């Protein structure tokens, strides 16, 4: 009998194992669900790990208020289909209550403000573990992070002093106030995620596929025209066939020109790409050489 698993089956089994370990060892986990492709995969992994039971954790979205409306609609539909519970932590509310200060100017972004909202929500709900869909192939600081990423009672990551992580024997022991961020998809690549979405027939927001949109060009990226982004002098909008490789804030997430209108053409496009997804579409990583590490040290996803 054939006893070989495919590369995707091995990754899937590892992710299921990680989720069950967290459910068993921590008392109040939460799954961060943004509606993006990686968190769509996370939800499928959770179904595989816990059905026919209920998820032993709730879902949470840190909503910047500048998300793409179609992603928010997709998020709510998916949660309803699963019959699970969603908490929305709102950056707008953090601004309104004075917890954070809105950046100003045409390049303003709520990306950094999310960290405060996330940490406040973790504290308010008493979460001791948060699942994220981050992958090590995305970015050089993420490439260094453990699957169980320990956070101190300020939510901070200490990259120079991470816990050893041996085999698949995870140490989920923490003190009160501390937490772990858990990344079950650590070992997946962008291509793995798309191949899995295709194999499982998962629905993702339509903006991952090529569509016509009004965009403008800034710093070599194409941004959607929206009420959340001001045009700077000289920038003009035009209509183009684009798709998104990542889904974040409208203010820091760029689109790529593409004609890939279905899963097969997206998989083919990703397999042939010569640019990383975050390099091509995320302004938030370009702030400095260590932009992601610095945000993680402060408590970011």
């Amino acid at each position, binding site marked *: 009998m054939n006893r070989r698993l495919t590369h995707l089956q091995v990754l899937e089994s590892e992710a299921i194992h990680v989720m069950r370990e967290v459910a068993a060892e921590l008392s109040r986990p939460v799954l961060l669900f943004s509606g993006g492709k990686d968190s769509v995969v996370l939800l499928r992994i959770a179904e*595989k*790990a*816990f059905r026919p*039971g209920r998820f032993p954790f709730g879902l949470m979205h840190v909503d910047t208020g500048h998300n793409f409306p179609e992603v928010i609609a997709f998020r709510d539909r998916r949660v309803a289909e699963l019959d699970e519970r969603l908490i929305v932590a709102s950056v707008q509310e953090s601004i309104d209550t004075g917890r954070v200060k809105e950046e100003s100017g045409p390049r303003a972004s709520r990306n950094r403000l999310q960290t405060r909202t996330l940490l406040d929500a973790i504290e308010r709900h008493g979460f001791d573990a948060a699942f994220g869909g981050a992958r*090590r192939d995305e*970015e050089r600081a993420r*490439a260094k992070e453990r699957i169980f990423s320990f956070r101190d009672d300020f939510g901070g990551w200490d990259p*120079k002093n991470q816990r050893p992580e041996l085999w698949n024997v995870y140490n989920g022991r923490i003190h009160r106030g501390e937490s772990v961020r858990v990344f079950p998809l650590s070992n997946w690549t962008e291509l793995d995620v798309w191949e899995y979405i295709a194999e499982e027939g998962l629905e993702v927001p339509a903006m991952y596929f090529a569509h016509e949109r009004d965009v403008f060009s800034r710093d070599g990226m194409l941004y959607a025209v929206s009420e959340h982004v001001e045009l700077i002098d000289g920038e003009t909008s035009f209509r183009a066939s684009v798709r998104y490789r990542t889904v974040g804030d409208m203010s820091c997430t760029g689109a790529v020109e593409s004609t890939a209108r279905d899963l097969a053409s997206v998989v083919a496009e990703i397999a042939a790409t*010569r640019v990383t997804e975050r390099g091509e579409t995320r302004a938030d990583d370009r702030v400095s*050489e260590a932009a992601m590490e610095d945000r993680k040290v402060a408590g970011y996803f």
Partner: protein
Amino acid sequence: MATAGSVDDGKSTLIGRLLLDSKAVLSDQLEHVEQASRRRGTGMVDLSLLVDGLRAEREQGITIDVAYRYFATSRRTFIIADTPGHVQYTRNMVTGASTADLAVILVDARKGVLEQSKRHAYIATLLGIPHLVLAVNKMDLVGFDEEVFDAIVCEFSDFARGLSVKDVAYVPVSAKHGDNVVARSESMPWYGGVALLEQLESVQVADDRNLSDARFPVQWVIRDHEGDYRGYAGQVASGVLRPGDEVLVLPSRALTRIDRIETFDGPVEQAFAPMSVTLVLAEDVDVSRGDIICHPDDAPELSREVEATVCWMTSEPLRAGGRYALKHATHAARAIVQEVVDRVDVHTLARDPHADELALNDIGRVRLRTSKPLAFDPYARNRATGAFILIDEASNDTVGAGMIL
């Protein structure tokens, strides 16, 4: 695969070269490394910046923690764990090596086999990595001299005789210039073997799995809304389980039968490592997280006394009388150190039977007594049921990696 070796042997550069020459570096990553190299005033593009992603690593030009990189050739998909060479970061090397099927040990051709290269080779084999590749790097700096390579091969194979490793290969390379990394080098016509990448692509790893001893550590009990469904979820650690199999639950020693094996995608006719599945048992026996399900005629040992080789990873030494939390597969217990049996001198592999403690980065044999019985196998036979970690109960840090003898 994991890289290993001493500081400045060029591990990160080798990985950078491997990724670059196999076209696994994307244009924005390369552009970033070129810019960063210029800022640092290095004349050539510094390929180690492809993996040394932390601010402190870039400042100091060293690797502090494991970086994981992913690449695929037409023949195989790779996960590379690039591990640090400094002795003080040995625990991070152990982290990277613990999940590897193959280790590439680097040696600087000018320096020969240093103590740290031996330590890493020893740790790699201790962790049960069955395949080693010794990459003799910086061959360009010794004039691509065959005699230098031969002398290092000779020295390392002498050392490797004392290790339990089934497969060692030797490749002379220059990571900086790319000789024998992805393509055969013209500078070393005397070398009759294959380039490093081809070596990595051709190693047989599928046969390393244990498919004979069925071991299923129970992770989680699944119940449905009504409460009339009960399934035991977990990842098969080794062996094969099938519906209808007689099974033994440890430590309770309850006997029952597998009624069916389920997944979200439907029932399966067999479950083998590393599948994550749910077992539904024929009878209502007491099973909980941490239990191990196996076949009655091939059970692991069940005992509160274990002897293990331990890699110690914290500055407070391990001594007799020390108490720790222990995690073995999915099972949590407490452990007390009965005795430090010996300590290994990683340079000579000699054992010091008079040692009474293991300090940071020491490796030695230890006898432990646990608060609850463990169902275990020798690590050499079964990585999943022979491994445990020790956790400091005050700080909650992982302080020891244990491999049961």
